[in-house]
């Protein structure tokens, strides 16, 4: 059972704070009076609303459809009536509101017709389509549409499937509790993943500070008709990062700028495997998830929460206390502060961490960098954070990129150990966003220039073609006119000229009549195609200008 493990460089050991929330069993969260369901909960195109205000919906009914390949549908988490489709505050770093569907719940929990999918009978492509339409996205935090990740590509299979039960972030225990209580379901989801990816090796990495989860998963794995290796990995932050877990388990590094599938490895979070099992074996779309509610609350615990539940509902349920200084979504290393507790739980919400000044003292003011390189010692991406900081601060983004800024996984280890208390990760995020903005501008400018150049080229070409046509016609006319008299009576040169002018006038007249209809009518196929191309380019520019930043980050 013992597997040779590998060590990744760097990492830190922040206090774990797991026991606060992992001593109570998973409980059902109350159904709030209304749910606010963002249409953009995943990486990729936001889902397109299918419902209208006033419409009654059933639990599990699709209320917004996936838009394109990299997208995922959104469903009604319970039955009720749609009351609003508008911009609402959402848990997102930008702090900007986003399109949400508000559902007034009726408390009846009336399900739409649903049932298990015979996944082995379906073609992989059809199955993936179904999963996309069931709203599946990675629940480890990145919320990448699972259907896309379950596509090994036309040419190959994905030999190694890794299930991530690392959960290295302090305070969070939702994956641990899921493994302890629902190990069988997780592994049923794993079976579907294995089926779609054609994997020959399945590994589950669980940090060794979760002995109960390890035992539960091992017991469940023993019942399977295929081999799943449950591996205890050393507890070190960020050992649960996909790239780090891959290195720990296989010794392989994901090449910079590539995906793990390029080296034949795909990684899914245990929560995603569970959601997949619910989808395939019960026909339930992704409408709820486990959320750890912990920190400065009376009863820290894990709750099974309907997507769209306002965060304050959960905090109240866990027992809110005086002296709250803020709320994070996610853990203390990578989580983000919530500006407003009305924001809903989304597919990415693994933890609601309530802060107090005792648990999270105010961070001291930053001092200058003394180049001590402790950040470099702990950086799991093996970067030189002190140099990146220097370049980012100086606005030298080119150098920052040369020093591999985009290999930074923003785990926060550098900031955590910095004796000067510099918010290093913040500088990297800033540098990245500046670079993206510049790129976007540049790409838009490039497109505009390209378009302009193409127009110039087209006008030039049309002019030339016209001139050529004219010349040819003149030639023909001249030939016609000169041959005709040669065959009959002798005509003077002046007559020929007159005839030519008359012919030209007649042509112009004809052209005028031709040109009077709108110039978009009766176009040649070629021109039509040209116009379509231009329209497509325009749409692309518009899209580029509106694309959210993290989309590109995750796709990189």
């Amino acid at each position, binding site marked *: 059972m013992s597997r040779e493990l590998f060590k990744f460089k760097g990492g830190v050991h922040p206090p774990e704070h797991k026991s606060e929330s992992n001593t109570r069993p998973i409980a059902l969260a109350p159904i709030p009076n209304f749910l606010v369901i963002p249409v953009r909960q995943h990486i990729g195109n936001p889902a397109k609303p299918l419902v209208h205000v006033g419409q009654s919906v059933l639990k599990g009914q699709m209320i917004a459809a996936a838009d394109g390949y990299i997208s995922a549908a959104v469903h009604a988490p319970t039955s009720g009536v749609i009351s609003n489709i508008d911009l609402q505050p959402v848990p997102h770093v930008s702090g900007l509101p986003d399109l949400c569907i508000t559902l007034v719940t009726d408390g009846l929990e009336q399900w739409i017709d649903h049932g298990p999918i015979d996944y082995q009978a379906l073609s992989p492509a059809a199955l993936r389509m179904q999963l996309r339409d069931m709203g599946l996205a990675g629940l480890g935090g990145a919320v990448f549409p699972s259907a896309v990740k379950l596509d090994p590509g036309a040419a190959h299979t994905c030999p190694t499937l890794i299930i991530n039960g690392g959960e290295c972030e302090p305070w969070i225990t939702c994956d641990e509790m899921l493994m302890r209580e629902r190990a069988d379901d997780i592994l049923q989801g794993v079976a579907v993943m294995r089926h779609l990816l054609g994997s020959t090796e399945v590994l589950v990495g669980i940090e060794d500070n979760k002995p109960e989860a390890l035992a539960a998963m091992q017991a469940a794995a023993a019942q399977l008709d295929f081999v799943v290796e449950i591996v205890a990995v050393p507890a070190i932050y960020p050992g649960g990062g996909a790239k780090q877990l891959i290195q720990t388990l296989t010794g392989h590094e994901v090449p*910079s700028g590539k995906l793990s599938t390029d080296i034949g490895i795909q990684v899914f979070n245990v929560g995603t495997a569970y959601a997949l099992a619910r989808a395939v074996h019960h026909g339930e779309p992704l409408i709820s998830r486990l959320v750890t509610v912990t920190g400065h609350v009376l009863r820290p615990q894990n709750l099974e929460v309907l997507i769209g539940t306002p965060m304050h509902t959960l905090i109240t349920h866990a027992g809110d206390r005086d002296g709250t200084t803020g709320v994070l979504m996610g853990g203390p290393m990578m989580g983000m502060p919530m500006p407003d507790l009305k924001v809903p739980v989304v597919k990415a919400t693994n933890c609601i961490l309530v802060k107090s000044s005792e648990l999270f003292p105010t*961070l001291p003011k930053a001092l200058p960098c*003394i180049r001590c390189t402790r950040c470099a010692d702990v950086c799991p991406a093996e970067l*030189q954070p002190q140099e990146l900081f220097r370049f980012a601060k100086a606005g030298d983004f080119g150098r920052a*990129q040369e020093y591999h800024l985009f290999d930074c996984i923003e785990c926060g280890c550098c*900031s955590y150990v910095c*004796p000067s208390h510099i918010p290093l990760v913040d500088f990297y995020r800033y540098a990245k966003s500046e670079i993206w903005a510049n790129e976007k501008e540049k790409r838009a400018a490039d497109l505009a220039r390209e378009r302009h150049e193409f127009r110039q080229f087209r006008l030039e070409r049309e002019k030339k073609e016209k001139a050529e046509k004219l010349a040819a016609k003149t030639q023909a006319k001249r030939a016609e006119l000169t041959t005709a008299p040669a065959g009959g009576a002798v005509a003077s040169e002046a007559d020929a000229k007159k005839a030519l002018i008359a012919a030209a006038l007649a042509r112009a007249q004809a052209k005028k009549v031709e040109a009077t209809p709108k110039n978009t009518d009766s176009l040649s196929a070629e021109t039509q195609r040209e116009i379509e191309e231009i329209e497509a380019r325009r749409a692309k520019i518009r899209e580029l200008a509106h694309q959210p930043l993290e989309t590109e980050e995750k796709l990189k």
Partner: protein
Amino acid sequence: MPAPFILDRSSVTQVMAWVLAALLPGVAVYVWVFGPGILVTLSLATVTALAAEAAMLKARGYPVKPFLTDLSAIVTAWLLALSLPSLAPWWLIITGTVFAIVVAKHLYGGLGQNIFNPAMVGYAVLIVSFPVQMTQWSGPIELTPSSLSFAQSAAVIFGGDFPKAALDAVTMATPLDTLRTGLLQQLTIDEIMPKSIFGQYGGTGFEWLAAAFLVGGLLLWALRIIGWQVPLAFLAGIWLTAGFLHFFDAGRFGAPWFHLFAPSVMLGAFFIATDPVSGATTPRGKLIFGFGAGFLTIIIRTWGGYPDGVAFAILLMNLSVPLIDAWTQPRIYGGSKRNGKDPSA
């Protein structure tokens, strides 16, 4: 405030405090071997450094308190004081300290911005400008006819009316000075070494001081305040370079152990070359930086104009840091190339 929302307990103040604590064994042995004069020097340098730091922070419009309490000025003061002759006059101490803090540190942008180690800049300025005063070392108590009390030391340092004869009775040429003078007189190493100033490995008493700095340095390493690369490479640079020369001609070049067990080497290896601000940052860069400093130290000691070369060697290596760092960028996770440039380029 963005993530992360928790911090390790470390701080610049804590780092600097540990450096000062690690110097204490050296200070104690210094007092034991050479008398209490060093305490006067240390105090004067500390007061001067804090005053200069406060004045510069104020002049540059920085908050005084957080920067003064980071203890970095005191570290500079102590390193300079421990490098100066034990009976250096007060104005020499003040000049060196002020130059270190004002010019080498703050005119370059303050904490974290100086490209040269401030203490070594102060030392270099003094030895270039005041070579005579920079040789006023008290000898080890066990070798000199008499020794000075704390008050007497203070009197000497502050230029009190102190009899020349009494001063002569306590000062002595350092082992490196003695070696240098001997070699200049065409003596061989074997003829020079029997002198009483030379001890088991280094100089009598001096070798104990070197050992104390070594102990403090190992403490810093054990606490992970400093890495192993710079000190080890520095000592290796000293030992290998001196060893090579000694092997080549034992009559003209001192033994590697002798060079290694000089207090300046141990202080340099563990406390000065490890200064993160002015040192290399990459793992391989640290090795090059340390080895280069050790190598240059022996070169300067052997062929240079000064008996010791640690300060100049470290300053020269400080100068090379941007180049060393640029050339030794390590391979990153998932990177294909060992060197700094972009693997995809």
